[in-house]
Structure formats: C-alpha cells, structure tokens
C-alpha cells in the first residue's frame, strides 16, 4: 500500500514535469499552487496542458482497473475485461460514429451513448457465451467481436465527410489521451462519482458471487439480478473513459491480476480499490512513455498498453491462472 | 480378422521392465507383462492406480520413461507408427468429433493406416468399413452426423472406427463409461464375439469388476503402478484382493448363469491415510 501510494505520487509528478520543456519538481509545484516567480508559460503548460491530461489519465486508469476487477468476479472469468469482451469496442464505435459524422448530439450525451452501446455489446456477448463454458471461449468470441467492430470503426471514420487523419482513427481504435483537456474532464467528472460508489458497495456481493451460484443463492443473494447490476456497473465505469479517451486496452484486464498476485488475496473489498490505483499508475506511466519515448512523435497510449499488455497476458496464461481443463 | 503376417512364437505384447508415466510423475517403475495371442485381459484397479497410464503406454500414446514395449516381438518405439496401427487399435476414453461428420466418414478414417495420405480407398477398404459398421449394427445410422448420436451409438461408432483398422490386437480404455447397463453388455458382448470368432487379442481397462470377471479370461489388478494380482478371474477376484486393492469388505460368489465370480461390496475399510 505504502509503495503504491509513493509510486502514484511519483508518477503524477513525473508526468507533470517531463516533456518539452522538462521542468523541475519545484517549478511544477510552484506552477500548481500559483506561487510567484513562476513563468506564465510554465504555469500554462503545467496547469492547462499537462494537468488535465494527468487527471484524465488517472481517472481513466482508476475506472478501468476497478471495472476489470468487478467484471472478472461478476463473470467468474479471469479473462474478462471490457476490452476483451467487446464492451470497449462497442462503446467506441458509438462515439466514433457520432464524432466522425458530426451527428447532432450534445457533448454531454457522449458518455451516455457510449454506455448504451457498451451495454448492448456486453449483453450480446453474455447471451452468446454461457458463464459455465471455458473462460477461453469468451476470450475467443470477444476477440472476434472486437476485430469486427474495429473494422466498422475504421469504415465509419474513413467514410466520414472530413476525415480527420490517422490520429483520430487511433483514438477510437486503441485509445489516446492526447485530446483530453479541461472540457473533457468536465464531461467525465460527474461519472467519476461511480468509482467510489462501486468500490464501497460492490465488494461484498462480489465475494459472495465468487462462491458459486448455488451457495450465493443459499446466502440470500439474488444471483441473476446482482450479476446484472454489477455487470452494468462495470460497463458504467468504462463508458466515460471511452467517451473521452477511447478504448484503452489491457489496463482493466491486467490491474486486478497484478493486485491479486502481489497482495495474495482475491478479497474483492481489497482488490477493488487497489486495482483502481494500480490502473491509474499504469495509465499515467504508459501515457508519459507515450509522450516521451518517440518524441516528437506521439504514440497513442492505448498502443503502449496493448504492446505491454499482450505479453503480460501470455505470461498469465502460461502461469496457469486458467488451468480449468480436464486432466488427461 | 486378417492378420498382416504370421509371427508365431512371440506373445502379442511383451512389456519389458517399463517405467510408465510422465516426466516428473512416474506411475509405474518396473513393469513386466506378457499378453498372449487370442487372450482377453482386463486391467482393474482403483482410481489413480495407473491402469489407464499402463494401457496408454502399451498403445504408444505415452512413451515409456525406460524399458520397451514389444509388439509381436518387435520394439514398438522403433516400428513405423503406421505399421503399428495396422496391428493394434485403441479405443480411447475421450473422443473429439468435429460437427457434421457422419458415421461413415468417421469409420472410413480407420483405413488410414492401410491407405496412407495419398492413395484412394480401394474395394477391400470399403469392405472393411462395411464389415465394421455391420458388426456394430450401425447400418441405419451411416449418414447421420456423429455428434447427433446417443451415448451408446456414439461409442459404437468409435468402436467401428477401431474395427475398420482390422488389427488383431484391440485396446479399450474404459469402454463402458457413460453407457447404461444394456449398452455396456452390448459392447462387451461384441468384444467377446470378436475375440472368439476372429481371434482378436483384447486388452481393456474396466471399472466394473463383475464385468471384468465375466468378459475377460485374465484379470490384472494394479495398485500404485504395480501388478498386485494376475491370473484367471476366479483367482484374482477374492475378498483378500478387494480388501488390499480397493479397501472394501466384500463377499465373492459364483454367478449361477455364467459361472464367473462376482463380488458384492459391503463396507469400506477406514484407511490410515
């Protein structure tokens, strides 16, 4: 815990300080709290360019991490995550269509559209894959569905009247924080209230659900309703992230696993908040890398998370978190 | 059935000081066995005793960790695997069937060891397939997809695949699991007829001791990878063995119709473990 909080403060400071120009920590703190003796340009850089992006990244990572933890326990599938089962892609398709074709939607409605589309894809996939089947099956179905939706995202964007270039495609395919400014933060902020609510309320039902349907039912938990509500909550956490930053992948999948492995617990009441913090740290680190590594090019943060996340997933699979196969 | 060539003098299978199992998990240390031509052998033992592992080692599905298995006097590990498949067929415990594959298409695959990858099926191959389907009484189901069959029909279709191989040695890994009692008797009766009419040597792993005693002429009891009893059913199926091997108190009597011994287990013996 202590390590994690130190790490998060460190990452926040680093992502505020590094870039062009790189500022000293003192200057960053000065700019933030408006002390005298800080150049206006620096203050502008820190407060209006980097700070919203850092807040947006932390918010996105936190919500994704918590969402993944809820989803994995709700579906009792270690491979569940909004990016793997098509929820993120579906939400992104909705947002991409609205943005690319300039459909007459008020900006405030973007997260709502993303939520609706995410819920639709989520329900679709759950109606296709029974929870009792092999967790691998859901991964395969989700991968196929995601590939398909991505083809539609590309089609929608290329067909749009004024094609905005590659960067916009990548915002909707892999997720990017480069467009996040104060406006976007304002858009997502009200939804962020969901985060502490979910962390506080979801832990106990999740722990009971994990014991299996029959046991949970015996303990007086309405399994179907609880599961539906929790699943909707996990989509709710993802929707605003997709609306402002696109479908950043692998954070929701990996953060809960890291937490469970490090803390050696699967108690949802512990995993949920720690996974949220871990997700925030991961996104900020990846985004800072995205800004700096190939400077002056900027590579969308979702690409970094995908490039790092795919091998992590391979390792997780090999470590046998998924050994549920019949023995020979 | 048509033997490939007469190899008189050798036992059908000879297991010479074999260590069976998987790397890091040795099931059997120094196993030696000899299966005579034309015999019906049943491997019995409690869950996890290693009887399936031993059968799989005989069938070269698992390589022995040390020692050798000889088929008709030849080291099975050195024979081309297709040649082995012309002399020995195995009915595995779990099957995978692709959707929409018909019974006829499935059984035809049994000719692969004789035909190989590039030659077309000949008349004799067709005859072998038809014979296998006739023996298993699947004529009316030939064009049905295998995944639509009932459990008993399903098992018969796989049995037909093994029969189409036209081998003189047949290995069966718990062939009666998932079958109801009627289908169990059906299948074991077919195995007995094959043995009697076609001189097919049979080695099978069986869970049901009474079935083993009735349908085999030799029983081998396995415990923790070692042979603890070996002989005709009347000598193997005894209260003493049931106590030692399965941990049950049981009485053994004679089946008034077949004369085979049969056991009725009463209580388990509390184990020290």
């Amino acid at each position, binding site marked *: 815990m202590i390590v994690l909080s130190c790490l998060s403060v460190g990452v926040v400071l680093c992502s505020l300080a590094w870039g062009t120009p790189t500022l000293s920590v003192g200057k960053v703190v000065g700019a933030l709290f408006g002390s005298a003796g800080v150049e206006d340009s620096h203050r502008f850089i820190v407060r209006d360019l980097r700070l919203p992006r850092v807040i947006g990244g932390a918010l996105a990572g936190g919500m994704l991490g918590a969402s993944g933890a809820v989803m994995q326990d709700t579906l009792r599938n270690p491979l569940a995550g909004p990016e793997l089962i098509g929820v993120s892609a579906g939400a992104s398709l909705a947002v991409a269509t609205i943005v690319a074709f300039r459909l007459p939607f008020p900006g405030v409605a973007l997260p709502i559209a993303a939520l609706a589309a995410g819920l639709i894809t989520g329900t679709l996939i759950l109606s*296709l894959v029974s929870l009792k089947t092999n967790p691998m099956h859901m991964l395969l179905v989700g991968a*196929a569905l995601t590939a398909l939706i991505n*083809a539609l995202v590309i089609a929608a964007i290329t067909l749009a009247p004024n094609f905005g270039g*590659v960067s916009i495609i990548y915002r909707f395919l892999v997720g990017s924080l480069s467009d996040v400014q104060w406006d976007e933060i304002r858009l997502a902020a009200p939804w962020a209230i969901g985060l502490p609510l979910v962390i506080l309320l979801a832990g106990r039902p999740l722990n009971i659900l994990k014991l299996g349907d029959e046991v949970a039912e015996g303990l007086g938990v309405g399994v179907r309703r609880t599961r539906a509500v929790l699943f909707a909550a996990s989509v709710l956490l993802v929707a605003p992230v997709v609306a402002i930053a696109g479908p950043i992948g692998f954070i929701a999948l990996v953060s809960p696993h890291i937490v469970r492995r490090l803390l050696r617990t699967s108690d949802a009441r512990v995993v949920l908040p720690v996974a949220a913090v871990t997700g925030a740290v991961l996104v900020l680190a990846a985004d800072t890398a995205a800004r700096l590594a190939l400077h002056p090019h900027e590579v969308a943060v979702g690409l970094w998370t*995908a490039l790092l996340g795919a091998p992590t997933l391979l390792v997780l699979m090999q470590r046998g978190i998924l050994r549920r196969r019949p023995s020979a | 059935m048509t033997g490939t060539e007469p190899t008189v003098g050798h036992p059908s299978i000879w297991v010479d000081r074999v260590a069976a199992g998987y790397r890091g998990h040795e099931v059997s240390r120094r196993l030696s066995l000899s299966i005579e031509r034309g015999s019906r052998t049943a491997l019995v033992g409690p869950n996890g005793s290693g009887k399936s592992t031993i059968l799989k080692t005989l069938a070269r599905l698992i390589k022995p960790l040390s020692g050798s298995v000889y088929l008709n006097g030849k080291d099975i590990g050195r024979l081309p695997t297709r040649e082995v498949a012309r002399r020995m067929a195995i009915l595995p415990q779990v099957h995978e069937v692709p959707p929409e594959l*018909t019974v006829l*298409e*499935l059984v035809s*695959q049994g000719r692969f060891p004789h035909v190989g990858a590039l030659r077309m099926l000949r008349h004799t191959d067709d005859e072998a397939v038809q014979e296998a389907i006739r023996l298993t009484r699947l004529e009316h189901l030939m064009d049905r997809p295998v995944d639509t069959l009932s459990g008993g029909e399903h098992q018969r279709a796989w049995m037909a*695949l093994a029969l189409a191989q036209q081998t003189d040695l047949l290995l069966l890994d718990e062939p009666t699991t998932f079958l109801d009692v009627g289908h169990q008797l059906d299948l074991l009766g077919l195995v007995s007829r094959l043995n009697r009419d076609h001189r097919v040597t049979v080695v099978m792993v069986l869970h049901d001791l009474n079935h083993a005693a009735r349908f085999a002429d030799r029983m081998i009891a396995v415990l923790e990878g070692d042979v603890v009893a070996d002989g005709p059913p009347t000598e193997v199926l005894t209260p003493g063995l049931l106590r030692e091997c399965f941990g049950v108190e049981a009485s053994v009597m004679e089946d008034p119709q077949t004369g085979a011994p049969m056991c009725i287990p009463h209580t388990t013996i509390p184990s020290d473990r």
Partner: protein
Amino acid sequence: MTAVAAGLVRRKPAASPNLRYRWSVAVLAVLLVALMLLYVMVGPVLFAPDLVIKALAGQPEEPLHRIAVREVRLPRALMAALAGAMLSSSGAFLQSVLRNPLAAPATVGITQGAVLGAVLALVLTFGSEGALNDLNTLVPLAAMAGGLAAGGLVYGLSYRRAGSDPLRLILTGVVVAAALSAATSFLVLLSGSHTDSIIRWLVGSLSTRTWDHLRFLVPVAVLAVPLAVATIPVGNVLQLGDATAVNLGLRAELARAGVLTTAVVLAAGAVSVVGGIAFLGMMGPHLARTLVGSDLRRLVVCSALVGAIILVAADLMARTFSLDWIPLLSIETESGSRIPVGAFTALVGAPFFVYLLRART
C-alpha cells in the same frame, strides 16, 4: 440464400452425402461463374453480356471496352475469386486441425502478420519515389513473408516439450494477433503519411489491383494445391483428436505442422494481395460445413467455392454501392470514396457471427 438452402437440404436425410456434395459443387460453381460475369458487366459503364464476351474474346467494338473488361474488371474479379477461395479454404484447414469453430486466419494472427509485412514495406518505400510496379510485387512479397513468419511465431510460442496443442495454439494466436496489430498501428502512426492506402490494407480492399497482383497470387495458389492434396487426408484423421490420430498411425505433431503450413500459405498468399479481409476465413467454412459436412475432402473444395462467391459478391457491392444512396445521411462523400470490401464483409459477418454462436449453444 445459401444458408437457407443448406437448412432445407439438411432436413432431408434421404439424400446421401455424396450426392449432396456433387449437387452443392455444381450449384456453387454455376453461381460463381454467373456472379463473375455480372461482376464484369457492372460498373461505371454497364456492358451487355455479349459485349463482355466479345471483349474477352479480343474483338471489342471499342478499344475502351477491352481495357475496361480485360485490364480492369476481369483481373479484379479473378483476384476476388482466388483470394476468397484461398482465405476460406485456409479457414477450413484451421478449424479442423485446431478443432475450434472460431479458428480462422484472422483469429490466429496470420492475417495480422501479413498486414504488418505489407505496411512495413509500404512505410519503408514511401520516401523513395519507387515506381508503382515495384511496389506491386514488393508489398505482396513482404506481406507473404509476414504471414509466414507470424504462423511460425505462433507455432513456436505454443510449442512445449510434449509438442503443441490446439487450444494453446489458438490462444497464443489471439495474443500474437493483438500484438502484431498493435505493431502495425505503431508503424502507421509513426509514418504519418499515405494513410489512405494503409487503411485500405488494414481493412482489405481490391481497388487498384491489376494483373501484377494476380501474377503474384497465382503461383502461390498453384504451390498450395499439392500441399492441400497431401494434407487433406492427414487433417481428416487429426480432427478426431491426437490420441485417435496416433492410434491410426499418424505422427500427430508432424501432421499438425503440415496442415498448419498449408493453412498459413493459403492465408498469407491471399492477404498479401487483398489485405486483412475480416471474417471470410471463418464464414466460408461454416457455410460449406452446413452443405457438405466435415469430411475435409469435401469441405475444402466447398469452402473454396463459397469463399470465392462471397468475396466476388462483396466486392461487387463495394464497387457499386455508394453512401449517397442513403437519403437520410445526406452527407457529402468525396467522389470515389468507396467502402472498402473488408468493411462489407465485416458488416455481413457480424450478424452471421452472432447467429453462428447462438446456434451452437
């Protein structure tokens, strides 16, 4: 339409599989030829069938006809048919050897590898103002290499001491596919130019394909035929499970490597000229299976025909369909901005995919 027909045929158990197979092949072949004729007829200028035949025979009434038919439409139609057949039959091999109905070139990373190869070649040659003709051979070559390398990578990563196994292969494939497409995106973002042609590669498109591309594709297809002939009987045995395969005298690991090689060559070849077309490799074999069952000898032939039909039809639609037809959308599209054929197959593929999974559970 074919799906409905398949459903009807299936209800009647009387027709023997062999007869059904012959009928299916005959009907599909006629359908394919008819579609290709239609394909050559339809375009910015509509040709009557007799004009097409004259132009094909080399006696056009106007030289322009000859160019339109023989240089533009015919190669594209042939390419659509050939690539569709290759992708779809590759899917048939993959589904049987991996024993999974969801297996396809795009789910195990072959497509993504080929696309990465193509994009790499495109990006590296942007700076040099190389002749377009060079690109027409260089890019497919790079794509082919990429597809083969991806296949090898997936196999290598899932290989253990006891060999490979279908489930591990397919899961490794999914992950490798994700990583490869991320790498492609990386390249695209860094290059920052010529994005239009790159995007057409990502989704798959047949526009601006010429005889050059066909000259590349045909040898690959010819190479694949003996491979397919040799691996079909092996694949037939292997789809019954490893234990049965070994029991029948097959060296399972070698056999799997052989069948996978066939599938990879077919898919990489097709993707190297038409790009990462979605869902053909999954859809084709499924439709074919409802027609003729799972015996690979029949399934591969039928999948190839179905795949060819789907891609020719989809590209015909992609070529003629214009967004201006949707009145409600009343948006101005740039002239010539057609929907890439890959988007079409995805649109058709989505409901099909859902139907497929529902039917299974």
